[in-house]
C-alpha cells in the first residue's frame, strides 16, 4: 500500500546532461516498492508548480531504507527537484501503480530495452530478474554516448549488455529497437520488457506482434492524482476503453496499448 511521507535527500547528482539521480531516505516506500512502480513527488511547498511529478522507482536498498529516483529535468517541477541538495526534504506518495509482472518460470531469457530516461524503472527490474537467475539481455539506447544512462551499472549486473546511440558514438548506430530486432530474430528471447519514448515503444510493439514473445511496456504520462481518481492520464487499450496509466499501469502488456 502506498504511503505519504516526507523523505530526506541523502545525495543528488547529475549523471548525464539534464538527468539526475536522487537518493532518498524513505524506508517505508523502499520496503514496499516493486519494479515498475512510481513515486508521486511534490516539487516544493508552493502552489506553483502545483502538481506532483510521477517518477519511476530506479532502485531500492531495503536494508538501508533508501530509494533512488532517476529523472530528466524536463520542466519547471523537475528542475526545482534537481536544484535540491542533501538534507532537503520532499513529500513522497507511493509506491503507486502496477509494476512489471515477474515471470514464475526458471532459466528464462529476458530482454530489457531502455530508451533515454526509460532506463529508470528497468534497473530495479534488472536487479530483481538477476536475483532470480534469469539470463538478461540489456539493451540501452540514447542520443549520444554522453546521454547513455547507467551503462556501467547495467554492464555489471546484466548477463549481456549492448548499447545503441543515434549518432553512433557508442555501440550500434541507430535506435535501440534495432538491437531488439536482431535479438528476436536469433530466437533467443522468451520475454521482453521495455521503457522509453512512445515511438520506441510503438516499435517494440510492432516487433513483438506475431512472434508469440510476450512483452510489457511502461508508459509515461502527465498525471493529476496518481491514484486512479482523476482519470487524467489515460491511454487507450485494445477494447477501446481508456485505462488509467497511474493505477491500471504504468506497466501494460505490450499488445494492450493502442497507439493513437
Amino acid at each position: 500500500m502506498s504511503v505519504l511521507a516526507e523523505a530526506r535527500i541523502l545525495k543528488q547528482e547529475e549523471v548525464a546532461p539534464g538527468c539526475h539521480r536522487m537518493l532518498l531516505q524513505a524506508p517505508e516506500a523502499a520496503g514496499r516498492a516493486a519494479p515498475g512502480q512510481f513515486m508521486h513527488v511534490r516539487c516544493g511547498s508552493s502552489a506553483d508548480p502545483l502538481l506532483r511529478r510521477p517518477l519511476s522507482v530506479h532502485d531500492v536498498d531495503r536494508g538501508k531504507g533508501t530509494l533512488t529516483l532517476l529523472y530528466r529535468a524536463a520542466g519547471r517541477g523537475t528542475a526545482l527537484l534537481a536544484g535540491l541538495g542533501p538534507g532537503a526534504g520532499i513529500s513522497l506518495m507511493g509506491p503507486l501503480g502496477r509494476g512489471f509482472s515477474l515471470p514464475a518460470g526458471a532459466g528464462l531469457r529476458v530482454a530489457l530495452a531502455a530508451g533515454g530516461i526509460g532506463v529508470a524503472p528497468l534497473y530495479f527490474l534488472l536487479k530483481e530478474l538477476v536475483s532470480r537467475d534469469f539470463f538478461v539481455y540489456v539493451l540501452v539506447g540514447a542520443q549520444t554516448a554522453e546521454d547513455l544512462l547507467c551503462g556501467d551499472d547495467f554492464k555489471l549486473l546484466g548477463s549481456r549488455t549492448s548499447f545503441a546511440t543515434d549518432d553512433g558514438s557508442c555501440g550500434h548506430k541507430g535506435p535501440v529497437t534495432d538491437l531488439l530486432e536482431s535479438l528476436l530474430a536469433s530466437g533467443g528471447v522468451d520475454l521482453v520488457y521495455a521503457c522509453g519514448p512512445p515511438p520506441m515503444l510503438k516499435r517494440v510493439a510492432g516487433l513483438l506482434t506475431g512472434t508469440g514473445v510476450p512483452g510489457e511496456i511502461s508508459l509515461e504520462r502527465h498525471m493529476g492524482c496518481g491514484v486512479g481518481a482523476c482519470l487524467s492520464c489515460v491511454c487507450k487499450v485494445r477494447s477501446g476503453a481508456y485505462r488509467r496509466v497511474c493505477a491500471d499501469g504504468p506497466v501494460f502488456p505490450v499488445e494492450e496499448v493502442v497507439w493513437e
Partner: protein
Amino acid sequence: MSKESKNGTPAGSGKNGRGDKNPVLAVDIGGIFMKNPVTVASGTFGFGPEYAPYVDLNRLGAVVVKGITLRPRPGNLPPRIVETPAGMLNAIGLQNPGVDHLVTEILPYFKQFDVPVIVNIAGETVEEYASLAGKLDRVAGIAGLEVNISCPNVKKGGMQFGSDPLTAAEVVRAVRAATGLPLVVKLSPNVTSITAVAAGVAEAGADALSLINTILGMAIDVKRRRPVLGTVTGGLSGPAVRPVAVRMVWQVYKEVKLPIVGMGGIMSAADALEFILAGAAAVAVGTANFVNPRATMDVLEGIEAYLVENGVRDINKLVGAAHG
C-alpha cells in the same frame, strides 16, 4: 485569541483561556447532515476507495463521488490534463461506468463507513437527469444528489444547462419531480450572472447550491503550435481560481437563501475559511487532493483550531460573517 475568551465569557469557556475545546462543526446542507463542513469536489476524489489509504473517510463531512451518467461514458480523447500557473486544466469528459455500475459495484463499498454519500449526476437531456434521479431515488446509502449542470468538458449537456437560468431551472424541476433526495445544484462560473442562475434553480426546488465548477480555459503548446488538450478547451481549477470562486460565493450568499457548498482552489484551512466567511456553509476540497491527499484532513483540523483559537463555538456562526 479574543479578549472575551481570555476573560472566560461564554464565548471562551474552555480551558487555557481558549474557546470551547469541541466547537460545533456539524452543518445541514439542505437536508444532508454533515458532521463537519469539509467534503470533496466531485471528480477529484474518484469514488472514494482511491483515497482511503490516506484519509479516514469517516472523518469527512460527506463524500461526493465522481459524476455519473445514465450510460457508461468513455471520456475524452487525451491529453486531458495540463498544468497552468498555480492551477491545472482538465478535460476528462465525464468518463464513468454508468449509474447501474455505481449502484451495484460502488455504493456498497460505503456500507462500512459512516459518511453521507452525495452522488453527482449529469445528463445530456433534461429527461436523462430526471431518469438518473428516479433510478437513484430508490437506492439505499445515498444522502443526496449533486446536480451537475456545469461540466465544461462535454459536447452535450453539462454547462449548457447551467448557463441559462431558465434551462437550469428546467433541469432542477425535472429532477425535483423525480426524487425526494436533497438536491445540491452545482453551478458554473462561466456565466454572466451566477446569481441569476442560482435564483432560478432555488425557485425550481434546489435544496442547496455548490459552486464553483471549473472555469473554461485553454493552453497552447507553442512548440507544436497546437492546443495542448485533446478537446482544445478544458476546465481550470486550483488556487488560480480561488478569488473568482470566493467572489461568486459572496454574491450568491447575498441573493439566495440556500446553503452553499463553496469550492475553488481550496488548499488550506485559511482558504476554506475565506469561503465560509463569504457565505459557504460547507467547503469542498478539489484539486488539492492531488497535491496533498490529506488536504481534507488538514483543512478540517485547521478549521477546528481556528474556531478554538477564536472562541467560536459553532461553525455556523461564521457562515457569511464577512458580510458584517
